[in-house]
């Protein structure tokens, strides 16, 4: 299978601190990879490097055959990488519909001049975007809430809206940063179904950062474990569960021998 994302020796240093060091992993097209590790292991930093928020100080990130390390976040998104955030970052003064519509700016062919003249081409494009956004919201049961303020949604719905907004950019790779954070067991089960559904419906590759082991072990095909910015293990959920290094990282040395 062709690899969609490849990290080769990627590292980043903040002053004297190596937050991530010489990280290698590849993701095949259509795969679902989980990135796990204890708090402060550098998982979100890896996300920020892939999406262009941080520029890696060493190594190379290749997406779909082209190097993306060093180019800005908006351009990387336009190439087909979308993300959600650990602490939800919706556009709070906009409606649910507008949140999704804003993410579709990437697909606009007409710019300012059309917005001002409001001719037939502009209206056709607005109609296309309206239909696209409503279809996406419909798929995720948010169509009823389209005109509500994004902030008025329940916590679970806000997380879902963030995923819908990311999908609206038309990505090939979706990065989910701790989507299960703060969810109760029922919501977590629904989230796992949702991720499986997204993969089948949009044939999308998913990179997941998650703390919740039940979620990670339940849906990921492959898992990469980080600790102190280094990769300490990589493999299937079964292999990770029994890896002594991983148990040590999470539970400490004593417990590993207990």
């Amino acid at each position, binding site marked *: 299978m062709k690899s969609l994302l490849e990290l080769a020796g990627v590292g980043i240093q903040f002053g004297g601190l190596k937050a991530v060091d010489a990280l290698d992993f590849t993701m095949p097209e259509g795969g679902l990879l989980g990135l796990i590790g204890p708090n402060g292991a550098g998982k979100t930093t890896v996300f920020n490097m892939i*999406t262009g*928020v941080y520029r890696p100080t060493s190594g190379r990130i290749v997406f779909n055959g082209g190097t993306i390390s060093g180019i*800005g*976040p*908006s*351009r990387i*998104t*336009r190439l087909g990488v*979308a*993300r959600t*955030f650990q602490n939800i*970052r*919706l*556009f*709070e*003064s*906009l*409606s*649910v*519909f*507008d949140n999704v*519509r*804003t*993410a*579709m*700016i*990437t697909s*606009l062919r*007409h*710019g*300012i001049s*059309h*917005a*001002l003249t*409001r001719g037939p081409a*502009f*209206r056709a*494009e*607005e*109609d296309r*975007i*309206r239909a696209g*956004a*409503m279809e996406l*919201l419909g798929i995720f049961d948010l169509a009823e809430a*389209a*005109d509500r303020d994004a902030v008025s949604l329940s916590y679970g719905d806000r997380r879902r809206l963030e995923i819908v*907004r*990311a999908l*609206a*950019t038309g990505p090939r790779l979706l990065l989910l940063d701790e989507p299960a954070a703060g969810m109760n067991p029922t919501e977590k089960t629904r989230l796992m179904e949702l991720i499986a559904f997204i993969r089948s419906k949009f044939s999308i590759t998913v990179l997941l950062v998650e703390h919740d082991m039940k979620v990670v072990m339940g849906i990921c095909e492959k898992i990469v474990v980080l600790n102190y910015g280094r990769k300490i293990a990589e493999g299937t959920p079964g292999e990770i569960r029994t890896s002594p290094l991983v148990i040590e990282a999470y539970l400490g040395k004593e417990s590993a021998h207990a």
Partner: protein
Amino acid sequence: MKRYLPHTLLAAGLAGAAILHFVSPQLDDYAVNILVLAGINVILAASLNLVNGHTGQFSLGHAGFMAAGAYASSIATLALAPLVAQAGQPAQHALFLAALLFGGLFASLCGLLVGIPSLRLRGDYLAIVTLGFGEIIRVVIQNTNALGGARGLEGIPAWTNLFWTWGTAVVCIYTIACLVNSTYGRGFIAVRDDEIAAESMGINTTKYKVIAFVIGAFFAGMAGGLYAHLITFIAPEGFNFLKSVDVVVMVILGGMGSTPGVVAAAILLTLLNELLRDFEQYRMIVFALLLILLMILRPQGLLGNFHKRPKAKP
């Protein structure tokens, strides 16, 4: 019919400006002057609202762009007015329009030059840079003899009337409303709400900020041109920091990001300014009290959070 609503409103607005112009001979000069000033303030406030309100970039340099437009258009009319003196009314109107546009374009060029480097800054830093820019423009004019220096520029033809002023105001409001109420324009609000998320949605935030800045500067420049051709005399002192603050007050009073609110506030403050003219020294006290009261009672501004959203379902 609904689809042509923006065009209809634009046409109605321009017709309104024309009607205002044709009834103006019935009004006394004082009233006409105040109406023109109100229109100029509406343009300034609505255009600053695109930058400060919708896009969330706190600029304190609006008077600088106003000055750039005022001087550019005045220089143009002063140089070319003798040529059209014999040609009659239509030629004079055409020259005035061209001069206003020239002033606007010159101001937006200034906006571009200031915006590209400074819009990488945020919050207080951007405010300070734009404040510095406004002062630089003023000091440069003050020390340029060709522009009259500190003495100012006089003898500018009194061509500003109600039609040109309110016509420009209508076009300004139309432009901003159309921009913000389109998918493209939702990007401005996205930049204000969360820059990191906006960038992650494929929005080039720097480009959006520069565009808001350039459009804002364009209309500030037009307003400057209208002001110059109303007063017929301009001096650098008239475009100082306090003028920028006046406009910021209108935006805050009206409600950041609410065009109707900001327009109402601009008209209200122009009138209040005139009503309090007899109490010159106490005017600033009233203004300050008004702002303090507003911040306590209605921090989102007069009409903030009041704007209607387009329905998602057609």
